[in-house]
Structures are given as C-alpha cells and as structure tokens.
C-alpha cells in the first residue's frame, strides 16, 4: 500500500535524502492523502523540537586552548619510522597533481635534480631554464602560481606576524634553433626525464636532428636502453643509426637492444642496424647465438640468413 511506503520514507523526505523521483512521488501522495500529510506534520515538528538543542560554536578560548595543546603534543610525538617507511611514488604523485608535462619535469628537477641529471653539467648550480625570468611580483597573489609546498611557518615573537615560506612552480617559454645550447640542454633533459612520452619522443626526434654532440649520443643511448615507451626507443635507434659504424659504444648499445628489448619492432630495427657490421666479431657472435636460440622465429631466421652470407672467418 502506498501509504506504508510513504510513511517509511517521510523521515528521509524531511531530511532531504530522497532521490528526485522518490521525492516527487512522496509529494504527489502527500497532496492527496490527509493521513500522510498529518504524519509529515508530526515528523516536521519532531525535527523542529530536536533542533532546539542547536550546535554551538566552540568558544574562542576552547579553540585556542585545543590548538596549543595539540601543538605541544605534536612536538613530542615521534615521526621517525613512519615517514621513512613511506615510499615516495613520484609517478603517482604527479598524476595527483595533474600538472602539464613541462611543469612536472621541472618539479622532477627540484626533487631529484642531483640523482637523475648526474651526467649533465648544466645541472650543477646553474638555473635550468634560461630566458626571461620575471621578477616575482610582490602583489601577485601567492595562490596564482601553483604552490608545490610550504617550507616553513614561523612567527615573529611578540607580534602577530606570521612568515610562510613556500615553493611555487612557474611555466616559461623559450625559443631557439637546434644549435642553441640552451635548447639542446632542455631537449636532453626532456628526453631523459619527462613524464609524458609524447614530449620525450619529440625531444628525441629533435635531438637526432641536432648537430653531432657527445651529449646527444649518450642521451639517445640512455633512451634506447631505458625508456619505457617503445616508440621513443625506436626514435632513439633512428638517431643512433648514423653512429653505429664509427662508435663502438653505440654499436654495443644497439646489440644490447637487439638481445634484450621487449618490443619486437625495436629488435628488428636493431638487427637491421647491425647487419652491415658483420665484420665485427661481437656482432657475429650475437647473430650466431640469436640464429640458434632466440625465441622469436623471425629474428632467428633473419639472423641465420645474415650469418650464412658471411664467409667463414673464425
């Protein structure tokens, strides 16, 4: 019977907890049913009665005293083990922050500049982003720039002034040719560190067009060996192809890739690149081994075919 259902739900109606369609039904019924309308009146009166014990705001004294007490307790509370045990997950943290890739890269520098960027001289001491650096406008509301963290909060003794030190991140633009050192530095950084694989790929691609520099080669090798995205690894391989003949390190890196990469496209491309280098005994050893034991049939047959063309040298 409808009245039972309505009576059961009148409480939720009064407390505004009904879904729209249920609320509509109740209202419709109440318009027609005096018994239920009376019940509504009773419940409303009940609601009003209970509201006569209103919620008082804690007195300023109570609030201040509670805060002080907490502050004292915090000072003696051990942090120690809890914080160290927490594993800082930068990837997840960045996703939480939902920042643009470039900003994220910048934060990476701030947090881990020492560890990740070891090979880059420009990291030590010098500002990473060169270019117009607008002086911090003291009138800018601090909330307009993205706040990454609050460093410290101190109070001048005897006054009601509070000092807050906080970090912000700001995005900057820079333009230049591939010959520009600053551009190269940023590209190198982006190729290694950027959170967004699209940006990494762009960076690697630009770097392959950049003039012949040792740094570039190193970064491309790093990308080839470590980047999680196979597209980026392929781009890196492209960039390195010119150096396979002349640079043994590059050749070794490509061989590593041929043996270990998880992506078959990358492996095939690597195979392709070492093929002209069959004079190298290391290359021959690798090809022979692959021809015999590799899991992938395509690789096996190609490696075998390549070796078959080599006159018996060993």
């Amino acid at each position: 019977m409808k009245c039972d259902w309505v009576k059961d739900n009148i409480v939720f109606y009064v407390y505004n907890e009904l879904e729209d369609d249920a609320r509509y039904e109740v209202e419709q019924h109440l318009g027609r049913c005096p018994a239920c309308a009376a019940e509504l009146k009773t419940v409303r009166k009940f609601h009003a009665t209970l509201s006569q014990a209103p919620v008082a705001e804690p007195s300023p004294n109570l609030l201040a005293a509670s805060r002080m007490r907490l502050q004292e307790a915090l000072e003696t509370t051990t942090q120690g083990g809890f914080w160290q045990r927490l594993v800082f997950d930068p990837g997840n943290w960045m996703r939480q922050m939902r920042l643009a890739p470039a900003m994220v890269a910048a934060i990476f520098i701030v947090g881990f500049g020492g560890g990740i960027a070891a090979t880059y001289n420009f990291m030590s001491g010098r500002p990473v982003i060169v270019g117009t650096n607008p002086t911090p406008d003291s009138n800018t509301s601090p909330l307009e720039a993205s706040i990454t963290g609050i460093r410290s909060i101190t109070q001048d003794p005897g006054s009601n002034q509070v000092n807050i030190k906080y970090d912000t991140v700001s995005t900057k633009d820079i333009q230049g040719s591939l010959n520009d050192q600053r551009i190269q530095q940023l590209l190198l950084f982006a190729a290694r560190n950027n959170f967004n694989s699209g940006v990494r790929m762009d960076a690697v691609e630009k770097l392959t067009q950049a003039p012949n520099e040792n740094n570039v080669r190193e970064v491309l090798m790093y990308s080839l060996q470590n980047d999680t995205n196979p597209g980026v690894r392929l781009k890196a391989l492209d960039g390195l192809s010119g150096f396979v003949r002349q640079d043994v390190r590059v050749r070794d890196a490509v061989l590593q890739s041929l043996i270990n990469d998880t992506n078959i496209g990358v492996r095939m491309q690597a195979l392709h690149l070492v093929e002209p280098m069959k004079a190298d005994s290391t290359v021959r050893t690798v090809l022979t081994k692959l021809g015999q034991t590799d899991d992938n049939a395509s690789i096996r047959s190609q490696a075998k075919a390549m070796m078959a063309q080599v006159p018996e040298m060993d």
Partner: protein
Amino acid sequence: MPADSYAAAIPVGELSRGQASGARGERGSGTQNPSLRGSVAAQGNRIDDTTLIREAQQGNRAAFEVLVRHYDQSVLRLALHLTGSEADAQDIHQDAFLKAYKNLGSFRFECSFYTWIYRIVTNLCLDHLRKRNVRKEDAPVATDRSGEEYSLIEQVADGRSGANPERDLMRRELGRKIGAALSKLTPRERMVFELKHYHGLKLRTVGEMLNTTEETAKNTLFRATQKLRGALLEMR
C-alpha cells in the same frame, strides 16, 4: 629556476601563543548552520590540502598544522555537541589529530581528507559514547574549564534570554528532555543522528565515515528517529 621561494608575512589575528584570552576566533553563534560553512570551506581548501598532505607526509610538521587549521574548528564543534563537555571535546580533538599525524603515511588519497579525519573523529566519538552509556540522563549542558555547568541551549545568541526566566526554564526543560531521548539511542544511532541532524551531512558521507553503506546509514537514521519520537512522546 622552476621553483621560487617566497617568504610572505601574513598577519593572523588568532595565532597568539600563550594568550588564550587574547585569541579571537570566529564569531561564536550557534544559530547559523555551521556545518554548511564548514563543508564549503572544506571544498575550497581541497586543492591546498593535497599539497599540504604531501608535505606533511614528508615530515613537515608546519604543513600538518596548517592542514589541521582547515578542520579543527568543525571537529571541535562536533565533539562538543556530542559529548556536551569541553574537556571531553578537547580530548577527542587531541586524540583525533594526533592519530591523523601518526597515520598520515597510510593516507593514499582514496577519499578526501575531510572524510578521513572525520572517520577518525567519529570512531573516537563512538568510543566515548560507549563508555558513557552508563549515564542515563544526558542533558545538553556543557562544563567549562572551571567545572561550571552552562546550558548549550543558552549559547544561542539571544540577547533577551536573560529577560525571560520562564522561557529559559522551558528551554532548559526541553534541553533535558532532548538529552534524555538521545541517550536512549545506541552509540551508532546517536552518531548517525548527530551527523545527519546537527551537522547536515549526507547519509552517503555518514556511511563512509562510519565505514558502512549509505543503505545501512539510512536504516540507522530511521531507527534513531523512531526511538526519539517514541521517547519524546513518553515524556509528555
């Protein structure tokens, strides 16, 4: 440099250490709906919370203290109304935030900090209610620091309250009745009713805070209101 450090001086009226009487908190008025104000403030601060929480998780105690400021007033308000005692409210406030501080490492942003801290607070409140179940008469009076009782109902900003002793008496009487009725509820029923009726939280939120479903919270509210209506009728 991608990160800039600013040192900003912000005058804050209420942060006066060592001078409890000199602190000026927010206007103390019980007649507005403080829960709305609290939850709106919580919404606006959520982005800042994330940063503060990350900082605090790294061991930055100052960041934790700022984070606490976003919530401690509404926590106190809840504890005060539920327990009726300033001392008990303060204990709950203390225990809740200390617990939050110690366990912050396990906060994984799976819910809002607001829900998380309230979960801690409601659990402490439930413990308090269970311990206090022996006490039958539970009038909504509060005891201040010096042990004096004062009626919570009289906290309502009403300049005429002193002028009408009869009305005061009726109010006090009503307060006692309400207190008595509330004491008939189980701790969970009391908690759900408190959060819903006095602090305006949605039952879905209440469910989250009590680690249960919205459906269960609904049923609990229903039972609570039935009991309360019955109790009030009996007292007529």
